[in-house]
């Protein structure tokens, strides 16, 4: 087993995703099937090589700090699952 159920549960917790036991079992199988891929990576010794993150462009892009027209409040809220008086309604995060 490349990865155990406890580690999968821990990763699901970090990623904020609920997984059923059946899904966790299937994910463990998926990890196993990729073991060859991971071994391919680990056998290559390239410690001294610099990583490439962006393949082509690698410069910061700025614009002038000027106000320009963006979405209206109604447009921004148009797809909100719940809304009220121009606000997104969200689950309570502060204890009573």
């Amino acid at each position, binding site marked *: 087993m490349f*990865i155990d159920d406890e*580690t*999968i549960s821990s*990763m*699901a*917790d*970090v*990623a*904020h*995703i*609920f*997984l059923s036991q059946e*899904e966790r079992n*299937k*994910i463990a199988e*998926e*990890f196993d*099937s*990729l073991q*060859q*891929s*991971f071994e*391919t*990576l*680990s056998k*290559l010794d*390239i410690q001294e*090589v*610099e*990583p*490439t*993150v*962006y*393949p*082509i*462009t690698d410069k*910061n*892009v700025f*614009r002038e700090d000027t106000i320009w027209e963006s*979405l209206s409040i109604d*447009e*921004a809220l*148009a*797809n*909100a*699952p*719940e809304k009220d008086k121009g606000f*997104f309604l*969200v*689950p*309570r*995060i502060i204890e009573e």
Partner: protein
Amino acid sequence: MKLHELTIEKANELLKKKEITAQELTEDILNRIDECESKIGAYVTIDKEGALKSAKSTDEKADFTDPLAGIPMSAKDNICTKNLKTTCCSRMLENFVPPYDATVISKLRERNAIILGKTNMDEFAIGSSTQTSFFHTTQNPWDLSRVPGGSSGGSAAAVASDECIYALGSDTGGSVRQPASYCGVVGLKPTYGRVSRFGVASLAATMDTIGPITKNVTDCAIVLSAIAGQDSFDPTSSDIPVDNYLQKLKNDVKGLKIGIPKELLYHEAVSKDVKDAVLNAIKVYEDLECICEEISLKNAEYAMSAYLVTLAAEASSELGQYDGIRYGYRTSSDYQDLKDFYKKTRGEGFGFDVKWHIILGTYLSDEKYYDKYYLKAQKIRTIIKKDFDEAFKKYDFLITPTTPTTAFKIGESSDDPFKMHMNDLCVSIVNLAGLPAISLPCGFSKGLPVGLQIIGKAFDEAGILQVAYAFEQNNDYHTRRIKERMV
């Protein structure tokens, strides 16, 4: 020729001469969609009213100087279209209606393009068969028991079945080129940064591109000319000027040097029929007096693994935005606290393949494993880029098969993840390096199309189009879909 079988170039000619109207063309294609969709399922949303309204307005303007004016097209459902549902084929965005257009769509609307609707895809563009769509699987017009490829399978199938004149797809690891190959049409992945990604749902921010899927190479050049260019809304878009792709299309290819990476053409996964079709294509280039030689991309064997790690790690980050707060699916189950709310929303909203990739990416990005996998994958990107740079010092273009095999049967590969990933053997390496590449039909195997991939230097889309055009003039592979497809 029926109206829906027209290319952009031919349709524009008839529109300019007033032999047809944009409304007639649009109505004919909408009828074609009605005829095909129960068998192919290329679309998830069809905007009949919007398309006919645009066509009428375009006819009233009566200006067809722009080759894309009045031409009906479709867009992959991860490309935002204002007031038209954009779902990424996920329950998470099942009812999402964007309040703005993606830049590529704005550019096409400015040219009076007619948007027919949104095409099917693998959920959030993770996949290579269109089987993970939340809605349905699309069938390949050449053989309805087979996949169209993915993740832009709906777009490729729509073009192959003449359910649109052209389409847009997105390509992160082959998702324009691979379905184009499976469906016998042309698909181009531009250089990273050549086409704005603003308004396109992000999958892997350092590899995502948007590209045209068309019936021939000339049409591909026309569409790319319209959508390429810097965009202030996309800080990764390039300020390098856009070439005149049409002007350079018919340049002579005599004397060009073409490299053939042996690690890809002769890989054990490549079927004999695909290899033979590509070798025949190489003979065509030799007859055109190109110099074709085998080369080595010595680190190609690590590309697939590096791609998978990069994809999963970046996707797990990009997909973090779907949390049921500002838009998208929200759980209706009871929850204990905010974290429980997120877990239920995301657990219910995403399909299994998306969840699995998020877990994989989270694992690979974890500080315990970061150096071993993600950082290593970015170092492999460096050595692969160097391999390409070395190859392009001596060669103008590289040629490979687009896919190791022709389209597989629906359900065949989906339970073997490594086999699924092998579909991307020749294409994902290009995304790691950010280079441009085009796929076009180069033959058939048991009645199914085989794709040829031409890879160019960064920002040499004009060159790969020119080389593709030269090949296309020597055969009829790109028109055989009309007589040989099943629908």
